[in-house]
Every structure is written in structure tokens, then in C-alpha cells.
């Protein structure tokens, strides 16, 4: 079970990777999170989380798309894998199940 637990930040980054689809690399993910959640995450933290997800097998990566803005370097692009997708869905289901089980009275 330990392996399937997702951190909050990891979940957020994975969702963003899915959202950006073919354009998910460090800076783009950082900006997207800033835009949507108004949350500032340092670039090294983004990379660290991606590396962690990669080692868990939830994301895949490849190199592509060198541009002059990047000093001629390629982008390290990420993609959610099947097991990543499964884990995201599992998290969502668990949350929903809990939401559904909360008695109405609790939030009154």
C-alpha cells in the first residue's frame, strides 16, 4: 500500500502533467500551477517531484523540442503512464467516497 500513496503536491503535479499533455515540462508545469492555484513552487521542487514520480513509475519522459530560449537545450517532457492514471483515479474515487459518506449535518 505504501507505494500507492500520493503526496498532495505529487497529485497536483501529475494532474497538471495530464492537463498539459504534450507540453508538460518543468517550467510549463510550474506556470500552470501558478496560474490555476496561485501557488509558487520552485523549479527544483517541480523537478524533484517529477523525478520521484518517475521512479515510482507514474510518469514517463522523453526529450524533444530544442529552442533558442533554452540555450539550444531540449525540453524534458513528461506523460502520465497507465499506472499513474490508475492511481489518480483511485485517489479521486477515495475522495468521492468519503465526500458521499459525509453526513449533511457535518457542514451545517
Amino acid at each position, binding site marked *: 500500500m505504501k507505494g500507492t500513496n500520493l503526496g498532495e503536491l505529487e497529485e497536483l503535479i501529475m494532474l497538471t502533467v495530464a492537463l498539459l499533455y504534450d507540453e508538460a515540462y518543468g517550467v510549463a508545469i510550474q506556470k500552470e500551477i501558478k496560474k490555476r492555484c496561485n501557488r509558487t513552487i520552485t*523549479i*527544483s521542487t517541480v523537478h524533484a517531484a517529477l523525478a*520521484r514520480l518517475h521512479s515510482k513509475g507514474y510518469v514517463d519522459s522523453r*526529450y524533444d523540442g530544442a529552442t533558442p530560449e533554452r540555450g539550444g537545450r531540449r525540453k524534458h517532457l513528461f506523460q502520465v503512464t497507465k499506472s499513474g492514471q490508475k492511481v489518480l483515479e483511485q485517489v479521486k474515487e477515495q475522495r468521492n467516497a468519503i465526500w458521499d459518506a459525509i453526513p449533511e449535518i457535518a457542514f451545517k
Partner: protein
Amino acid sequence: MNKNKIKPPGWIQKLVSRYCEPYLFEGISGDLEELFLENVELKGLAKARLIYLIQAVGFFRMRFKKRSKRISNMKAIWSNYLLTSFRSLKRHKSFFAINLVGLITAITCSLFALIYVHDELQFDRQHSDIDNTYRLYKHYINPSESIDHFTYETSGMMGPTMTDEYAEIQEYVRVCPWFSKAIISYDQHNFGTENLYFADSSFFNFFDFKLLKGDPNSVLTAPSSIVISESLAKAIFQDQNPVGQVVIGLHDLNYTVTGVFEDVSRHSSLQFDALVSWSTTVPNVGPLAYRWMNNWLAQGIFTFVKLSDDTNPESVVEKLPDMMNRHFEERAENYFLQLMPLKKMYLYGDDIRDGRAMKAGSITFVYTLTFSALLVFLIASVNYVNIMLSRATETHTEVGVRKVMGSTRSQLMGRFVAETFISTSIATIISFILLAFIIPQTNPLLGKELTVMALFQPLVIGAAITFILAISIFVGLYPAIVLSSPPISSILQGSSSVGSTGWFRKVLLTLQYAISIFLIVCTIVVIRQTNYLKSKPLGFDKEQVMVIDVNNEVDQKIDVFESELLKNPNIQMVSTSRSAIGSGTFSTTVFPQGYTDEVTTRIFGVDQEFFETYGMELNYGRTFFKKSLADSNNLVINQAMVDYLGWDDPIGKHIRFSADGEPATIIGVVDNFHYGSLATATIEPTILYLNTTTIWNSSVKISGTNQRETIAYILDVWDNLASRTPIDFYFVDEWFDRQYQKETQLLGMSTIYSIISILLCALGLYGLTALILQQRQKEICIRKVLGASVSSIVTLVNRQFMLIIVISFTIAAPVAYYLISRWLDAFVYKISMDLVAFAIAGIITFLISIGIISSLSIKTANTNPSDTLSRE
């Protein structure tokens, strides 16, 4: 903008590339650059570069670290080294034990010295203005009476006058500790104070002692005010508010409690639990009217002054003779006022006398302790190096195999340093446990109140870690270099070339011997000097004389007290008078017959029984007639006075106490007797006069049998007579012993250190001899086969060590001689330096060495040669 200039800092990029996994680096550096270019647009080049730097630093995390095959291999190598180290320590238990004992001793001694010295340095630091605060003392010179010493005694007028006249002196405070225990009574109960001081009203502003109740500006202003310590307040008043209460104190007067202060920290030189306002003693102001605390002539109080910022104390001291000339001309030629910084007062007051009722340390002792700890450390380190080196023959093969397998030299050195690290760490842990037992034990000897908690100060823990690292690196490194040095070729050939370092080990052994011999010589001299001080005849019989303070309610009933005491057959004599030996002395100036200049002498007010009670020897004439006041205008003097005056026939000569006073006739001369520590005080010319009216001290001579019962009887008699005052007494012989506390401390320490050093030295010698015998085993066996006797073999081994002892003796002896002579110089009465100490030290070292070497070599010489020789 110039394209070339818009670039992120290259150096950090390089560092990141070196640190990060190459596969990740392209993405990382690309992202960083993208953000950088964006920031250049938004915030400018300089700021963008800074942000780049901060962001780049974020990538130095374990997650991005380059994973290298070599690193994981290193891990395996190191865990193997650690394993081998543990195994080798386990296999060579006796060498390991010797090493461990040495390291434990060295670390324990050093940490102990550190804790002690650190504690000594804490004194008086609570005063915020410590840099500007000085204590007045004086250099007292009187060539005609060969007086030349330093003393803290000052007069009551010095402080106020100098503060008035010199702008650099901002304020003063005078302090006068009371001479004995003062009793405070409240509501029919009596409470003894340990130390009662008279103090000026500025006391609490001058020093940073914390006042819990009362106003620091005014608690000591009004006459008859008393401020007491928190614990005394609790004892007297329990939960009542002490402020405003009236108690009965000194001279049965009423005193009003005006404040309560926090108990004085043990890190304070001034130690008091009650303070009485100075104004109480000022004539016409307070009820006590002590003229002697408030004039120029009497010396007996202590003065502290504060100088303005950045004032050089020397410049103030230079002005003081002028003040003395104007106000106190009579003594301007004798008293030279000096300033002792408060910061140094505790440790550096060794040669200033009369610091009564104040705590004092000794810088000599601090140095001795530090120096001895260093020497022990040195001996233990040498042992360690020697024993590690001695294992070269065994590690030979291990080193060879590792080298063949591709180990580098530095890796192999790491392997040996690791072994030292393990031993040192174990030793440090054991030292801590030992110290937890040792520290409480040594408190009484050193006069400290250290607890086990002293071990857990950051300083001590830091020092322990530093020791571990420093020993591992500095002590462990040399053997590591030597042990890892043999080239593969020599190992493959099977030759053992490590014997080449033999001379180095011998130099180290010589050094160890020199240190041990030095310490033994010092200890023997300290023992002899202390014994000499304690056993030198004092000119009277100090045994079984008990001195009781009767300067209290008992003085009214002194006749009853004396007669009750004498009813007990075990009480032989009672002498009641002003003076007793050990109760302090007074001096006065007199005009002997035929002298126009005054002569300073000690003066004792005694009764008719004094001479017999103390068993003093009479040289000429007689003492005072018993039960008669016929001699009230006659004097007895001591032999020193006769010698000083150069009189051939002193009996019948006159002495006047003032230039035009009544002449008093000398009726007897007693032999010289000591009335102070033999370490510092000489016997001065002394006058004894008949005084039966000033009742201060009772000296009671009791017989040697049934002492316990006799003392109980005396206490009984006291309790029947005194309702308010607990008995306060001392024994004269114990009083003299207490005078040598410093010497006793030094004696204790130097004995411990020299025993430790000789033990360590013996251990080291044991290790070295065992090694040499091992290396020469074959040679010895062949000699035996060829017909050598056991004794000739033992002599052979012994011979090379004897030279070492002789050399180390010639190094140690002059150093010891020089230092010991200097130490002895400080004593008035001292033993003469002779060769006894050196001879004893030499013989001890010689015998121990011969014993160790012979026992080991006899064992080797007795083994069957065939056992050794058949092995190849």
C-alpha cells in the same frame, strides 16, 4: 542589449552539471535558462542572475545526485574496512585494551581539566561593568622591618577621597566582611549567617547582584538597615514578607530588613548572605560608631572602584601617591595603592594577602592542571602510535593483499584511521561514564560544587567530539601512513621492512620517560614540602587545643564557664583573653628603650594561663603571675623581638606604646612561635601583654584521652550558659592544616597525574617490549640453541632500554629542577632542593622498567626454540 552578456552565471551551472545526473541535467539547465531569460526581460540582468543562482542551488538534493558505480563500490569497501577494523580489535584484545586504557585516561584527564578550568573562568562574569571595575590593594613596603608584600586591606577613607578628587574614578563601594559568624534573632529564634558584610549604599548599583525585594538605590542607605539572602529570609520569616521586619543582630542592636537579594551564585568571589548598611558604622550617624572603618589609619576594609570608560588604570595608579601624601602622610612611604581588575581578581590574586571572606582561585593551579593533562595526553598518544606501529608485521599481509586487489594508498590509510576512530569513540563514551563518578568525588578536594550536568555543557560535548576527530586524524594518521606504506614488491618477497621506524619509536619512548620522571620528581618535592609545612615545630604545642569564640553573651558569664570546664579532669587548662592562635593577629607601633623611631610589632593580649595552655618555651625571665594583676604593666616579648632590637639582656628593659606614654617593663622572653601559615608568614617581633578584660577567645587544652566525651562535655556546658548563640570553635592543629589547602590540592592532583603517567608509561613499555621480542624471537631462539643462557638474553633485551632511561633522565632533571625551585621560592619556610627526589624518581622508573622487560623476556627466553624455529 549585447547578446553575449545575457548569460546566467556559468560557474554555478558547471557545479550543477557536475552534481546532477547527466540524464536529468539537460532538462534542468534548459528550464533554468528559460526562466532566466524571462526574468531578464521582467527584472533586469542583475536580479535575474541572482534568481538563477538561488534556483540552481535548489537542485543540490540527493534526488538529483549523480549515481556513480564507484560510490557504491566505496560503500562496500568501507563497510569491509570497518568489519576488518572490528575484527582486528577483537583479535588483539590485549593491545586493544592497552590502547583503550591509554585513550580513556587521556580523554578523562583532559575533559576533567577542561571542566575545571572552564568553571574557574566563570567567576564574577555576572557583573555587566566588569571591564571598568577594580579592587584596590596596596603594596606594603617597610624596609626597616623587611616588610614587602601585597594586601587587600585598605582604609575607609581611601575610596571616598579618590572618587572625590579624580574625575576618572566614577564611583566606589566599600565592603567589610564581619570577622565571625553573626547571629540574627527574630521572634526568639536564632539564625547564623555564613558571611555578613557591611556595604556602602551604592552596593546594588555597583555590582549586579539581583535584588528581589526593595529598591536598589536605597536599601542600604539608612543606618541599621539589613538586606538578607532569599534562603535566609525563608529560614527566618517563612512565608511572611521580610521587608519592614525588625531583627536583632550584631551587638544586640535592632536592624530593619529593607530588602531581599537572590542567593549569591557560587561563581562569585564575594560570598555573603546578609548585608548591613555602612552608615550603621559611621560615628554620629549610626549606632555602631566604628571609627576604624571610617578613618585613614585603620586598615581592614575592602574598596572597589569603577573607572570611566577607556581609562587606563595605570594612569590612575600613578596619581594615587599624591593623594596619600596630602591626606595620609604618615604611611605615604609605606603604602602604594594598586588596582586589581575585577576580571582577574579571582584567579590572579595568589600573592595578595588578607582577602578574607572572599572566594579565590589560583592561576598556578589552573596552569598545573592544564599542563599535567596535556602531558598525560601526550604520553597516551605516544603509546597509541607505538602500539599501532607494532602491529605492522601483522597488517603487512592485509595491506599487501588489498594493494594487489587495487586499493589506493589513501583508501588504506582511511582503513587505519577508521580503526583509531572506533577506539577513540569507545574511549570517549567510557570517559564520560567515568567522569560522572569522578566529578562528584573531587568536589571536596578542589572546593567545587560541580555536578554531573557539567558533562553535558555544549563546550564539553564539543570538546569530546573534537578529541575524537583530532585523535583520529593527528594520532591515527602517522601509523596509517607507515602501515600503508610497504610496496607490493616487498610484501610479495615476504620481507619485513617495517623495522626501519624503530628509532622513531625509541624517541617517543624517551619523551614518555622524560615526562614521567618530571612528574614524579615534582610530586615528591610537593609531598615533602607539604609535609614539612605541616610538621615543622611551631614553637608551641598545637595538639588538643580548642579555641572557642566567647565574644558574645558568654563574656558576662566567663568565670562560670571557665570553672565549669575545669571541673572535668580531662580539661587541663583554660585561657581566656583577647588573642588566641588562629583567631587573627593585631599589630601596633611601639618605642623600645633606647629607640626614638617607632617599631611595628605584632601584639597579643593574653591572660596568665596563655603560655601554659599553648605549652610555650620560656627563654629568659618569667611569665605573668597567676591569679594576680600585678603584671598588668609588664610585658613578655618573643625571641624575634630580642634579636631585632639586638638586646643582650632584655629583662628589665622598657617599652613605651607611644612616644610619651608609660614605660612597660619586660619580664620574660618566649621562644619564637608561629601564629600564621608557614607558607607566607614569617615570625615578626611580638609583644604579649596582660589583658583579662577583653574577652574574645577561650583556648581550652584537653587531654588526649576520651576526647569525644570531653568535647561533648564542653558543648553541654556551653548550651547551659548560652541561650542565643550556638558554639563556634576550632582546633588549632586543624586550623594550621587548613592554611595549606592550596598545597594539599596541588599535592592531590600531582600525585594522581604522576601515578597515571607512570602507569601509562609502563603500559607503553609493555607493548613495545612485547613487539621487539616478537620481532627478535627467532634471533633469541637461535642464540639459545647456540648456548646462550636465559640471563644473558634478558640482559641483551634490557640493555637497549637502559640507555633510553638514562637519556630521558638527563632531559627531565634540569627542567624539573628549574620549575620546582621557582615553585619553592614562593614559600617563606621551605625544604632545600636536594637529590633525594631525583634519586627516588630514577629508582622508581628503573625498577618498573626492569620488572616489565625482564618478565616478558624471561617468558620468551624460556619458550622451547623448536616451537618457533620449526614453523618455517
